[in-house]
């Protein structure tokens, strides 16, 4: 439909904000440049938005609108409905009646459809997430790991890329040092998770809608990788070669430890949680870093960096195959679920400010998980295709 914009709107906004703010990682910059290469018009937008003259003219234009006057004006318009109870009630009755009709017809046709072809509803149902990821080789070639055969998948810069029978990817370094450093990327879609072992033996678990970019063989004095989304890492100890993880505006430096990073772009904070050993977390925007001890969590956002005590069990629940909510608000609960089950959600009306508690397997179907949340009696759900409506 939109061949020139393979990136989602929200992803593009995120990239542009970072671009203007100068906080993009190398990987993200490449992603944005890739988008800009798609058309002359795309390239122009990117250039305009760091052009001082263009921005000055734009700000002047926007500041010139008299917002308060406009607000008063539209509220005086005849079309602007004032609270008129009788009229409203009538309106609601009409809405209720038409909704009933729509539901009835929808149900009728749905039944008919099921009778004739049960396949046609596929793709409109919410599925439970599972093992699923895409490997991007140095050449840009992509491999769907789900459908790849077990055994050797590729050879990349002297490392052999194997897929194990458990459905993981393992990099085995060759004898010789490669001539050039070659990068691969593994990315999970919404509703996917994946596990891989890097050439130094470090293990990586990717949650849904996450990615990691890494050299196929580590050389030099550092091991550097870039991640997005949520990743759990068990870094192999190498005394003289620190492991550095870059994500949304922050860097984590380690020698050999177990830790989790949650850096989803739709979450307000990046959370780095340490289980074992020591890590140093720094934010790119400021010359500021903290050293974490086990069971501590670094919370970063832009230039801010704070340390808190972590509920480790809750943080790594996803990697162990379950959801664990511990006084989480409904928005954060829904964001988590929607990434794993790949659905959209909308809120119908305002909801009570309740904290949700509970533990449930990630491999249950969506109905079972939502039913658990409904026990609270503070919230109810309606599923329409791949959309979940959250209401009181």
């Amino acid at each position, binding site marked *: 439909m939109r061949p020139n914009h393979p990136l989602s709107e929200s992803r593009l906004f995120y990239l542009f904000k970072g671009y203007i703010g100068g906080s993009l990682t190398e990987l993200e910059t490449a992603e944005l440049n890739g988008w800009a290469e798609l058309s002359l018009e795309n390239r122009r937008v990117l250039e305009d938005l760091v052009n001082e003259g263009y921005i000055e003219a734009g700000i002047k234009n926007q500041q010139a609108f008299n917002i308060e006057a406009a607000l008063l004006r539209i509220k005086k318009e005849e079309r602007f409905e004032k609270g008129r109870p009788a009229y409203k009630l009538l309106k609601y009755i009409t809405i209720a009646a038409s909704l009933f009709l729509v539901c009835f017809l929808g149900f009728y046709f749905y039944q008919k459809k099921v009778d004739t072809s049960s396949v046609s509803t596929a793709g409109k149902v919410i599925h439970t997430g599972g093992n699923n990821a895409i490997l991007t080789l140095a050449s840009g070639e992509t491999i769907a790991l789900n459908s790849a055969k077990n055994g050797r998948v590729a050879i990349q810069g002297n490392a052999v890329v194997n897929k194990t029978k458990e459905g993981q990817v393992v990099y085995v370094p060759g004898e010789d040092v490669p001539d050039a450093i070659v990068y691969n990327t593994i990315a999970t879609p919404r509703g996917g998770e994946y596990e891989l072992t890097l050439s130094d033996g470090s293990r990586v678990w990717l949650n849904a809608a996450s990615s990691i970019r890494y050299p196929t063989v580590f050389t030099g004095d550092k091991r550097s990788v870039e991640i997005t989304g949520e990743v759990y890492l068990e870094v192999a100890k190498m005394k003289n070669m620190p492991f550095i993880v870059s994500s949304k505006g922050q860097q984590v430096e380690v020698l050999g430890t177990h830790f989790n990073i949650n850096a989803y772009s739709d979450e307000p904070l990046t959370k780095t949680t340490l289980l074992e050993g020591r890590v140093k977390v720094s934010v790119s925007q400021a010359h500021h870093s903290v050293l974490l001890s086990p069971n501590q969590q670094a919370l970063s956002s832009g230039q801010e960096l704070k340390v808190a005590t972590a509920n480790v069990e809750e943080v790594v629940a996803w990697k162990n195959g379950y959801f664990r909510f511990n006084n989480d608000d409904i928005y954060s609960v829904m964001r988590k679920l929607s990434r794993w089950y790949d659905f959209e959600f909308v*809120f119908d009306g*305002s909801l009570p400010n309740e904290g949700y508690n509970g533990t449930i397997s990630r491999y249950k179907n969506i109905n079972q998980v939502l039913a658990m949340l409904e026990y609270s009696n503070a919230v109810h759900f309606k599923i329409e295709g791949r959309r979940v409506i959250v209401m009181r």
Partner: protein
Amino acid sequence: MVKNQDDVQSLSYPLNMGDERIFDQVFRMYYAPLCDFSERYLHSKDDAEETIGKLFVNLWNNKEVFSDPDQTRAYLYRSAYNGSLNTIRSNKRRFKREHAYGMDTEFTEESFLNNMLRSEMIAMISREIDRLPEHYANVIRMSYVEGLKNEEIADLSGLSVQTVKNYKNKGMNLLKSRVSGRIFAIISSFLFLDQLKNGLF
């Protein structure tokens, strides 16, 4: 990066547009960028303001509810795009004349996304000025947006020239702490240029 990750973070979701307090907040935040966006298609400030005014009346009357910032932005710009298209359709004769002057912007998905990026990114910077304490924001607007000299600002606002300078500096320092180096460099280059030109700095 702008410190508040989300430009509309001061709003708590879900947003019920039938709630007057929330309606006003969203209006103040989006009216100017949406008009700017619509103007890119209509090439007329008045037509753009009328189109966006209608859009907000509909939001209020339908008590639209938004679940998150991405959805809010996407919905508003999509409506502004459709509204602008309707404005052109219902004023065909008038816009035909402008078409003849080659002033038309094509209504395509590409133009939609790119114009939205332009308007919204500029709004992101512009909102940072709006977020400053009123007296700082006013001085900075007069200097940056209207291009007035310190003396002129002092005359208009009844402040001393020294106070104008102080407000400008304090406001700029605040702005600096709120936006990243790159945006700040863009904004401040005008102010300092201005001050250099005026020989007052």
